[in-house]
């Protein structure tokens, strides 16, 4: 069976994003970029399925600028077999990403698509669910465990009160939560090998999608700041301040 893994190129999770002074967005020039952490977990899960003999081929796909090739090469170095770059310099909203991915899925016919539960730039948490809707497939979001067996996937989901287990008919969509696995680092030999793995270039138009934003971004601003308060010297002082100054005890 084949797995499709959409991966997004985002600001590295360890970098603190800066809002541009003119309010037009977040500064992206000369900022370290990396694969979205949840997508790394998705790639890792696909590789583990392949290592367990349940999956034959892993196809990574990214929608974005030329530079998103780097992200795809990372996926290939981790262990994906081939990659597709759907090239666009426009900002693509989850709905259009999902439409493009539907086009890819219609062509590739994977039995499972594993996405990150959210991209840490837009924090949308939408694409997987939207793709499931467009394909008419089942969805197992926020997965912390996935078990594949004859035509089904048993997915343990991290939900507000604890865990929920659902069984999905394949083909299905899975989105990853943090504790699904710990992604491996690509080894140097694998990074070299990845350079020779196939990477196809496509455009949104190849899938009949015209990228068009539905949300007008009017402004991007810094959140209301919070100032450091005071240091207290003892538990007694802390309790006194909370009672008599803050009034929260």
């Amino acid at each position, binding site marked *: 069976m084949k797995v499709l893994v959409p991966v997004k190129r985002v600001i590295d*999770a360890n970098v603190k*994003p800066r809002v541009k002074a003119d309010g037009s967005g*977040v500064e992206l020039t000369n900022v370290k970029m990396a694969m979205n952490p949840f997508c790394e977990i998705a790639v890792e899960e696909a590789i583990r399925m392949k290592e367990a003999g349940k999956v034959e081929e892993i196809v990574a796909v990214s929608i974005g600028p030329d530079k998103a090739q780097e992200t795809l090469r990372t996926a290939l170095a981790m262990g994906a077999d081939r990659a597709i770059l759907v090239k666009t310099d426009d900002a693509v909203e*989850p*709905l259009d990403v*999902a439409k493009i991915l539907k086009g890819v899925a219609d062509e590739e016919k994977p039995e499972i698509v594993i996405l990150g*539960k959210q991209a*840490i*730039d*837009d*924090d*949308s*948490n*939408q694409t*997987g*669910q*939207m793709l*499931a*809707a467009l394909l008419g*497939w*089942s*969805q*197992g*979001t*926020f997965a912390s465990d996935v078990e594949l067996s004859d035509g089904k996937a048993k997915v343990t989901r*991290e*939900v*507000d*009160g*604890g*865990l*929920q*287990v*659902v*069984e*999905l*008919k394949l083909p299905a969509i899975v989105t990853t*939560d*943090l*504790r699904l696995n710990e992604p491996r680092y690509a080894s140097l030999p694998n990074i070299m090998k990845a350079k020779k793995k196939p990477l196809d270039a496509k455009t949104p138009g190849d899938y009949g999608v015209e990228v068009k934003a*539905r*949300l*007008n*971004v*009017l402004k*991007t*601003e810094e*959140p209301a700041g*919070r100032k*450091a*308060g*005071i*240091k207290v010297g003892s538990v007694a002082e*802390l*309790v006194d*301040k*909370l009672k008599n100054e*803050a009034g*929260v*005890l």
Partner: protein
Amino acid sequence: MAILLVAEHDNETLSDQTAKALSAASQIGSDVDVLVAGKGAKAAADAAAKLAGVRKVLLAESDALAERLAEPLADLVVSLAGDYDTFVAPATTTGKNVMPRVAALLDVMQVSDIVEVVDAKTFKRPIYAGNAIQTVESTDDKRVITVRTATFQAAAEGGSAAVETIDAPAASDLSSFVENRIAESDRPELTSARVIISGGRALGSEEKFNEVILPVADKLGAAVGASRAAVDAGYAPNDWQVGQTGKVVAPELYIACGISGAIQHLAGMKDSKVIVAINKDEEAPIFQVADYGLVADLFDVLPELEKAL
């Protein structure tokens, strides 16, 4: 046109996240209907009918809806779409699971996690783990919205809306429910607690976590939270995680113990009214957002705090 609010409940009780999302919905427009989808959920529907500002409650019950799986619930919402132009749900794991599916079926781009209603089509929402706030205007004919409830007050009681029973669409065979592993707890829920005490990697083990954090929580009547590091290490269950990818909370008092203050953790708690940080490293970033910082070993001061309360 009207607004449909998808209620958060567990069939028996209505979550106060519904009342908070109702406040956001009421700022968007005045004709708000609440959809209670479940099984044996009459009590939750009656509770929704009592909230001030609800026009009517729609109650849909079936086996397929009992656990509010995304596939049947999205189909149900879409079947009602003709009567509404705005669809709202709290940004709980249920809301996040279902609403994007609804949005795609309606060919609408969802606005996730709104923290402010500017007007009926314009909203503020955090991006980059709350490091920036975006103001976005939806240009779609219909709008699908999830609400970050920590920033909205719960709507008061005082309503007396009618509860109307509606048909549930036929079950889909795409997915089925296996089980819930939900911890029973007498503590308040993280998202509605007045006081939260959270522990981080410094706790070192589940035993220590329980030994030093829980007694203070009991004294304070507090909910218990955790950093991702503490959850990953198995010191605390996943549903205690506070942060960008866990729960977003805004209690009156948040006490962070042995938590360094990574941006992803701050994203979940920096809107708390009063923040206390206990950390033995005086350079820890958590102190930059703390109103009261105590530079100390938590294993010394937490037992002391418990006695002092």
